[in-house]
């Protein structure tokens, strides 16, 4: 199949169906509504179930029930709805139920505005759980990440979040579905799925609360000391560009990283720029910063928010070696390539 021109939200929904998503539960909210709309059109034709829930809260609990029944299942939302899903997302990390959650970020707090934003980087439920969190920067990547998210969720029995910003959800671009990542083989069989005990060998009843044979602390301890380190080893994704002899390194994800590429091109011959683009926000690619060369004087962190969120992780990764400068806004003076360029030049002049 050649490239097809699609809207980001639709591209992610199509990728999910191609990955074998059997059920979708959702609730309308801008800028993600084309996702449930696409599923509503396509899933009934392709053997799946679409159900509009009464709230994001209910949608996520339906996801939990469908996942407990062994189905590949997805939901999507934006910030105000993501808040409502978090208690259940946390519960699913405890009960170890896979699912895919797409968050198309808009500006907050709460109802905020419809503008695209990168403001939900720190949004988490209770209890210190972790979920693989993808951050796509173009539509091909958004489709690939959603596609792979289902395998990753099943492999680790843990939900996966795809954090797209509103721009990724709303823009149109070509997507080639022949280029999806390879299917993972040897995924663990869902022997725990609920179909009534009669469906299980020996009619052994299954209780889903904690993984079999584990107490609450044991389950949590296992995740924090074994599962999460394994995910960090296997699934950390980052794009690193020219950081070895950069004067300034840009660190950005999603649409902000896309803008950075323009700036790097524009400032060629003026200042040597490298870039670190996390493709997973968790696990965060801390080690990528070890590749930064000795000439680097500063890191500039463009984000579509007012004072920076990912910049905290950049500072942890920097460990005091380079100052980190935020640039960006999600309200009045929206992040643009020109604003990034001006910030880089100001930082560069300050260093002379």
């Amino acid at each position, binding site marked *: 199949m050649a490239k097809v021109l699609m809207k980001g939200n639709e591209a992610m929904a199509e990728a999910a169906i191609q990955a074998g998503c059997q059920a979708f539960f959702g609730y309308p909210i801008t800028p993600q509504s084309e996702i449930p709309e696409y599923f509503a059109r396509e899933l009934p034709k392709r053997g799946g179930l679409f159900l509009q829930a009464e709230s994001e*809260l209910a949608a996520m*609990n339906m996801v939990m*029930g469908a996942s407990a029944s062994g189905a590949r299942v997805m939901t999507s939302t934006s910030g105000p709805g993501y808040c409502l899903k978090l208690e259940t997302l946390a*519960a699913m990390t405890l009960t170890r139920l896979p699912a895919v959650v797409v968050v198309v970020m808009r500006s907050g707090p709460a109802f905020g505005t419809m503008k695209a934003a990168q403001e939900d980087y720190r949004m988490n439920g209770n209890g210190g759980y972790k979920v693989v969190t993808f951050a796509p920067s173009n539509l091909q990547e958004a489709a690939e990440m959603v596609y792979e998210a289902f395998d990753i969720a099943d492999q680790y029995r843990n939900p996966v979040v795809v954090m797209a910003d509103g721009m990724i959800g709303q823009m149109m671009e070509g997507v080639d579905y022949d280029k999806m990542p390879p299917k993972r083989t040897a995924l663990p069989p869902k022997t725990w799925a609920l*179909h*009534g005990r009669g469906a299980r060998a020996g009619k052994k009843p299954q209780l889903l609360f904690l993984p079999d044979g584990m107490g609450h602390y044991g389950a949590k301890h296992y995740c924090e000391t074994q599962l999460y380190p394994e995910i960090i080893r296997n699934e950390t994704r980052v794009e690193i560009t020219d950081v070895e002899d950069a004067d300034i390194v840009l660190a950005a994800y999603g649409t902000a990283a896309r803008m950075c590429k323009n700036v790097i091109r524009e400032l060629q011959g003026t200042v040597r720029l490298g870039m670190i683009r996390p493709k997973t926000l968790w696990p965060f690619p801390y080690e990528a910063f070890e590749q930064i060369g000795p000439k680097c004087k500063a890191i500039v962190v463009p984000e579509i928010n007012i004072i920076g969120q990912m910049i905290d992780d950049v500072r942890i990764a920097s460990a005091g070696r380079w100052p980190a400068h935020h640039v960006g806004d999600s309200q009045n003076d929206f992040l643009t390539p020109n604003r990034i360029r001006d910030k880089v030049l100001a930082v560069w002049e300050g260093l002379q």
Partner: protein
Amino acid sequence: MAIVYERPKSLNGAPFTYCPGCTHGIITQQVAAAIDELGIVDDTICVGCVGCGGYIAWFMDTDAIYSLHGRAPANATGIKRMNPDKVVFTYQGDGDLASIGTAEIVQAAHRGEKITTIFVNNATYGMTGGQMAPTTLVGQKTTTSPYGRDAAHCGKPIRMCELLSTIDGAAFIQRVAVNTPGNVRKARAAIKRAFQCQIEGKGFALVEVLSACPTNWGKTPAAALDWIASDMIPYYPLGNFKDFQ
């Protein structure tokens, strides 16, 4: 010697964790007995809730899941939609169903979700230590209505059967009590019919069971049963609100 009474086979034998005199035990047993009588233990999935009754998930010899506070009907929706040929039931307290989970129960009924709900109304939040619930009677003292529930301040108790029976998707709605042997028998029959409603694909089914919480009511088990008859039943009339053909 003939066996005239034994533990329902749908229970796994784990000792109940309910307080002495708590009628959650009787209700859990009636649910299991109904499942036995219908011969559906292999095909039933139990959705427990947050609250004392949520422990049913640990007592049933069926597949089961523990769901979040108030969300059992949504969780059960996901399970039932993926398992349309299985029998899915929720077991929820009155804080769970009539307070934090009102949206989920109303919308499950509105969709005509083919699930069965056992709604245990003990006029209080049991597990958290006896706070006021939407079902707490006017004048009833609880830890958060220490001077008695004042209708002017927080309304009169909500009657869920009456409310839910106005919804087209609800096919079977009945209120029962477990304060006397006769009422226990009627409760069992209603629970069985609520499962039958689901098996026949008629729509949403709910049985509200008036239940005693002697611990938080500060009453002996016997006095608690008397209070169901003297105070609860007059406000929460027993009977069938909706039935199917």
